[in-house]
């Protein structure tokens, strides 16, 4: 079975709902673990990495928590497979670049995904739609505990779980949430929010785009510190920050509708106009405009536009997902044309946005 046959189609995946999912697209908790007496992946020679993969993958695959699952060595996946996994946020770009000696195990619900020999021997993550940090932690804590008797993790009572990079030392935990913040961006409040989060030692970065760009107004907030605080303390702290950001985004949307509704309607109307009528469109422009469409849906400007549809279009118009729907190899220009065609088709039955009276 290929990964494409295994994963549920985007139309189904995007139906998954969770608390606060009008702003929080997904939550994630990742744990880093390493085996004793084996060099870390980036320093290990290929035979070392293969030995670690052979030790870890069967142990992970026997866990009932992951059933039904898909497992593969990274060198058995095509570049397109890997890119699809990146676009679905199941593996990191770094892991997609890995070859022999690295592997992956993912469950069908896409709630658990284990990367083997990424930067650490084990990077296991729990994912949930919406704001569900605690549920993610419980799931991954459980998976980690189930692996403990099977694998000999490098751990000392003083330093905790030993990781390749000292920035992950201790708990090895990275808690993050993917946020859609068009209100704060339109209100030009986003820099203030990012700075405030930075002051609390949380990293905020655009999930799409290079450098400081945040295409589609999608941001990822994550903890930076992993040592000197317990996992529940870290989760408590970041949950507080996330709830504050959600409140700020809600306020920004309310304020925009109150004070600058013409500007908001203009943005959303134009976004619909371009998406529903363009004959060629880049992935970058698509992400930014779909973000506005999603906002329009939440502000009640559309009668027939579900969030799942905008999210599905967001995923399907990413380069690898677009390529996957076509057998021949697409160039960038062809992709832009096919992307526009798909958007026109999908939006044909969605009436244009109406500003409330």
């Amino acid at each position: 079975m290929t990964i494409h046959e295994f994963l549920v189609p985007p139309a189904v995946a995007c139906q998954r709902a969770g608390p606060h999912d009008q702003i929080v697209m997904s939550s994630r908790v990742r744990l880093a673990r390493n085996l004793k007496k084996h060099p870390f992946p980036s320093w290990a020679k290929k035979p070392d990495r293969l030995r670690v993969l052979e030790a870890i993958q069967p142990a992970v695959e026997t866990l009932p928590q992951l059933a039904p699952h898909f497992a593969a060595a990274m060198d058995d996946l095509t570049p397109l497979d890997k890119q699809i996994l990146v676009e679905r946020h199941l593996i990191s770009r770094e892991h997609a670049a890995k070859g022999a000696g690295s592997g992956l195990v993912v469950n069908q619900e896409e709630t658990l995904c284990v990367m083997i020999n990424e930067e650490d021997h084990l990077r296991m993550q729990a994912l949930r739609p919406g704001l569900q940090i605690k549920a993610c932690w419980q799931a991954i804590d459980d998976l980690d505990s189930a692996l403990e008797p099977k694998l000999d993790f490098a751990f000392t009572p003083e330093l905790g779980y030993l990781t390749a990079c000292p920035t992950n030392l201790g708990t090895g935990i990275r808690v993050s949430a993917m946020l859609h913040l068009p209100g704060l961006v339109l209100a030009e409040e986003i820099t203030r929010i990012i700075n405030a989060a930075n002051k609390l030692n949380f990293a905020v970065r655009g999930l799409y785009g290079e450098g400081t760009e945040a295409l589609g107004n999608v941001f990822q907030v994550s903890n930076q510190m992993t040592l000197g605080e317990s996992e529940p303390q870290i989760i408590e702290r970041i949950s507080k920050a996330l709830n504050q950001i959600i409140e700020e985004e809600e306020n920004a949307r309310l304020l925009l509708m109150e004070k600058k509704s013409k500007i908001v309607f203009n943005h959303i109307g134009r976004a619909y106009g371009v998406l529903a009528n363009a004959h060629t469109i880049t992935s970058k422009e698509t992400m930014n405009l779909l973000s506005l469409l999603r906002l329009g849906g939440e502000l009640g400007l559309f009668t027939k536009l579900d969030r799942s549809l905008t999210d599905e279009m967001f995923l399907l118009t990413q380069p690898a997902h677009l390529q996957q729907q076509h057998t021949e190899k697409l160039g960038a220009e062809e992709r832009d044309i096919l992307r526009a065609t798909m958007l026109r088709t999908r939006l044909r039955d969605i009436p244009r946005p109406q500003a409330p009276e």
Partner: protein
Amino acid sequence: MLCNACKQNEAKVHLTKIVGDKMQKVDLCEDCSKDKGVDDPTSYSDLLMGLSAEPVPSEPEPAAEPGAKCPACGYSQADFKKAGRFGCSECYDTFGEGLVVMLKTMHKGTRHTGKVPAALHQSRVEAQKVKLLQKRLDKAITEENFEEAAQLRDEIKRLK
């Protein structure tokens, strides 16, 4: 994450830079951070890693003898300086001496207070129990309470 300036090396220094009244995030590699004069704290503010009150650490690295290599994996101080990562879990022992200074710049604390593997947790609990029984055993012997001593000895044997 790549360095914003040269776009070649891994960024190790993460800063928030003030340009006019706007703030900008900057991620630099070690070389570029020196070139841009990060050692001059007046041109930058607010190190991202919660160091706002502290001066920029020019070379956060563990101090071991130069040339020291990890006996388990052969990793050297120079390798760490280049990659910012260790070679294996034993490197934390090898290069452990200056580690605390570096960890202070990265984390809330320098001691782990989170999850402990269950087996280790269990063995610690048992070790404590044995210690306690041993004390009672010593007392029983000095008090010539041989019946209790024999019982305690059995119990300790079972736990070990």
